[in-house]
């Protein structure tokens, strides 16, 4: 039985659940007015559906499973036309993402196709839209959020004054928060090398992005759709702090930090400021 955690926030109640899938910790957060048995039953039902969805996503897209569609496709065991429709959707998304980011994001089509950088945000956004956001039509439900390892899609009811307060973790000390913002509906994606080690690769050289001064250690992209934010967070994590070629193509806001502790904020295609993180 999945555990539900309870937390009182002002005059609301936040009920949370955790799912471990694909080695990623997912946290579902449901803000309600009243905590009762029926509400918990509904939440557990949605949590189960989300878990099933994540298992399906893993079975299709896992680069580690020998029988995932991704592996079968890369080994020429199946044609594109024989793949799951979700596989085709992500394939189209990956192509568009590469062009939108002018190659900063690449799923490497010529060679071994790897859409991992787009799958997570896409999967979280879909789960939130299909399983959680519809709960808000019930007057007892105030707000919902699905956070997968730091990437999240969240929604809030218009009938309440609830806003999500989101903290961006300090990449030099993950016990600290470096920045925060409040928003009712939206998404934030984070990418970088600070939590998982060097997992980003320069698509043109095939080499890991090295930990050098001007390289970005963490990028956080705030927008309305996590699919979009996640692609851009991955793209910006491959840049250097002095490179702003991406800015005119990216909508929304965000923050990125370099290894030499320069932190930069942007909003709607403009740099707001760049400063040194003295205490980070």
């Amino acid at each position, binding site marked *: 039985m999945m555990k539900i955690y309870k937390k009182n926030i002002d005059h609301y109640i936040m009920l949370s659940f955790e799912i471990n899938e694909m080695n990623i910790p997912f946290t579902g957060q449901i803000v309600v007015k009243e905590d009762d048995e029926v509400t918990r039953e509904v939440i557990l039902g949605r949590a189960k559906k989300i878990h099933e969805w994540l298992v399906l996503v893993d079975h299709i897209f896992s680069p580690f499973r020998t029988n995932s569609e991704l592996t079968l496709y890369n080994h020429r065991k199946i*044609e594109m036309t024989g793949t799951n429709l979700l596989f085709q959707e992500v394939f189209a998304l990956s192509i568009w993402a590469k062009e939108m980011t002018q190659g900063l994001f690449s799923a490497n089509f010529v060679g071994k196709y790897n859409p991992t950088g787009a799958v997570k945000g896409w999967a979280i956004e879909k789960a939130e839209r299909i399983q959680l956001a519809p709960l808000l039509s019930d007057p007892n439900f105030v707000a919902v959020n699905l956070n997968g390892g730091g990437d999240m899609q969240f929604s809030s009811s218009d009938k309440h004054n609830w806003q999500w307060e989101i903290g961006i973790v300090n990449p030099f000390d993950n016990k600290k928060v470096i920045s925060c913002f409040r928003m009712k509906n939206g998404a934030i994606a984070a*990418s970088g090398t600070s939590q998982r080690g060097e997992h980003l690769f320069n698509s043109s050289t095939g080499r890991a992005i090295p930990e050098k001064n001007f390289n970005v250690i963490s990028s956080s992209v*705030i927008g309305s759709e996590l699919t979009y934010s996640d692609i851009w967070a991955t793209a910006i994590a491959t840049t250097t702090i002095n490179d702003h070629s991406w800015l005119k193509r990216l909508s929304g*806001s965000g923050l990125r930090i370099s290894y030499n502790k320069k932190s930069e904020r942007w909003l709607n295609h403009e740099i707001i400021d760049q400063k040194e993180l003295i205490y980070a």
Partner: protein
Amino acid sequence: MSITLAIAIDGYLLFFKKSSAENIAIDSSVNSQSNSNASESSSASSSSSSSSVDSGYQNGTYTGKSASMRWGNVQVKVTISNGEITKVQTIKYPTDNPHDQQVNSSVLPTYEDEAVKNDSSKIQSFSGATETWKGFTKSLQSALNKAES
């Protein structure tokens, strides 16, 4: 095998989606033998001659119509020669950058006071570069989830 051949056996793979994953349809005139996953909405035919290379993909030019993005459709084209993908491109973009309109309400993140130990008591959710489940128990999010109040 060349681009010429790829064009000669021109086929279509349609990634088509209206508003949710359930509505995607697929249509192929290149390849139908492995279409079982999409059979409920497939109008596949194998009218054109297909030419495949051993252990490669079916040669051809594939175009798709897709909309996983809520703000519009994306259509893509894939060219396969000698069993390998040689080119991918977007041929239709989401209309008039409507994403700009959707994020008009976007907010600027504010800096916490770096000198003081962060008061994160009002924060409900934490964002950072991908965490693994292994490290999660030591994270701010895990601590927050378990903090009864």
